[in-house]
């Protein structure tokens, strides 16, 4: 329910994968003499054209080409982009559950903005869920999903508890919360086997 850029992840992983496969494949094929000879010729050609390029871009009086500065800056740019990409993973947490705004122009209502903080729902749901003995733990977080606030309720039932019972009862709690807040938000209920349930289970599962 977070805003991880999934399409970007797939495209980037695919590109890097193809690149690494090509490099690895080429390295393995060097064992074949014909491929090795071909690679020698290609590399020599490429080296000559790069040398020519570097010579043409060397300013008079300078030792080396200014292209090296461009290369260094380009690498720096890529590193920054990679950092941005990492930071984009798992983003989307927010603190607002609902908000309303009126400018008061129709004369009947006062101008103002109301914001219901996400911790209202988080604490209300969490305290209700932690009273239950069939749950080991529960976490509630507010996200912004599709431009709208949304709730993620993650519950960790004890081994052997029927998920449909947990699901119906958590849904009832969510409906009660709808009445309390006065508006509906998208809710995700994730019934998951936490680490504690995993270590104490008797049933092996896939």
């Amino acid at each position, binding site marked *: 329910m977070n805003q991880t850029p999934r399409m970007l992840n797939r495209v980037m992983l695919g590109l890097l994968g193809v690149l690494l496969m090509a490099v690895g494949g080429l390295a*393995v*094929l060097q064992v074949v003499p014909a491929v090795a000879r071909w690679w020698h010729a290609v*590399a020599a050609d490429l080296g000559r054209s790069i040398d020519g390029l570097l010579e043409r871009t060397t300013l008079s009086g300078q030792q080396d080409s200014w292209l090296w500065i461009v290369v260094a800056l380009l690498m720096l740019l890529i590193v920054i982009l990679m950092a941005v990409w990492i930071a984009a993973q798992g983003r989307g947490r927010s603190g607002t559950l609902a908000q309303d705004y009126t400018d008061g122009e129709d004369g009947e209502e006062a101008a103002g903005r109301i914001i219901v903080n996400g911790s209202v729902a988080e604490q209300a749901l969490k305290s209700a869920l932690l009273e239950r003995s069939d749950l080991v733990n529960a976490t509630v977080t507010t996200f912004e999903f599709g431009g709208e606030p949304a709730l993620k309720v993650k519950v960790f039932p004890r081994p052997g508890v029927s998920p449909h019972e947990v699901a119906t009862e958590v849904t009832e709690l969510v409906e009660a919360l709808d009445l309390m807040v006065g508006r509906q938000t998208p809710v995700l209920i994730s019934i998951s086997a936490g680490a504690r349930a*995993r270590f104490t289970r008797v049933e092996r599962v*896939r």
Partner: protein
Amino acid sequence: MSERITQLTQRVVRRELHSSRAAPSIAAAVLISAFCLYVMFEAALKATGQDPWLVGPDQAAGWVGSLSDNVAAAPLVGAGLLVFIIGLLFFLNAVLPGRRARHTIPNPRTAIVVDSEVLASALARRARVAAGVTGDQVMVTVGRRAVEVQVRPTSGVPVDVEGVRSVVEDELRQTSVEPLPAVRVAVAPSGVIGQ
């Protein structure tokens, strides 16, 4: 309003059932960053006319250009295969659907996803009670399309296979996961003594 929520809910469920590939993405980004940082460093040294740190660009290019002369065949093939396999892993991560071991329970108000482990654990408890055995004797495997229940009976006490199957199917129907998996019950030929 309500229709918008249904729409968003469906999107949430679809996202939750598939991996976001965050971990391989971070690994890829770190890998690319490390490489680029090194190249940046060497390029900066070259640009300022200093001696190279580890390998200068000319030297590296020459080494790669005549790779088969510089490295013996066995290490070359090994390293090449390693790089190829790492690349294949990244590529498969990108191309495969990346389904997670989760099921969804349809609900008009909320998006509900259940880990297969939770479902398996609930099914195993019902099966255990129906078969009259202890927890160690029942193993449940939940896949996307099939649920496999393996029972090791107590020696001398027959297990009612149909009873176990109907109980597991009943629990699945009550849970109403989508898609509804088929149930297979297997009773081990040898029993367990002294349970």
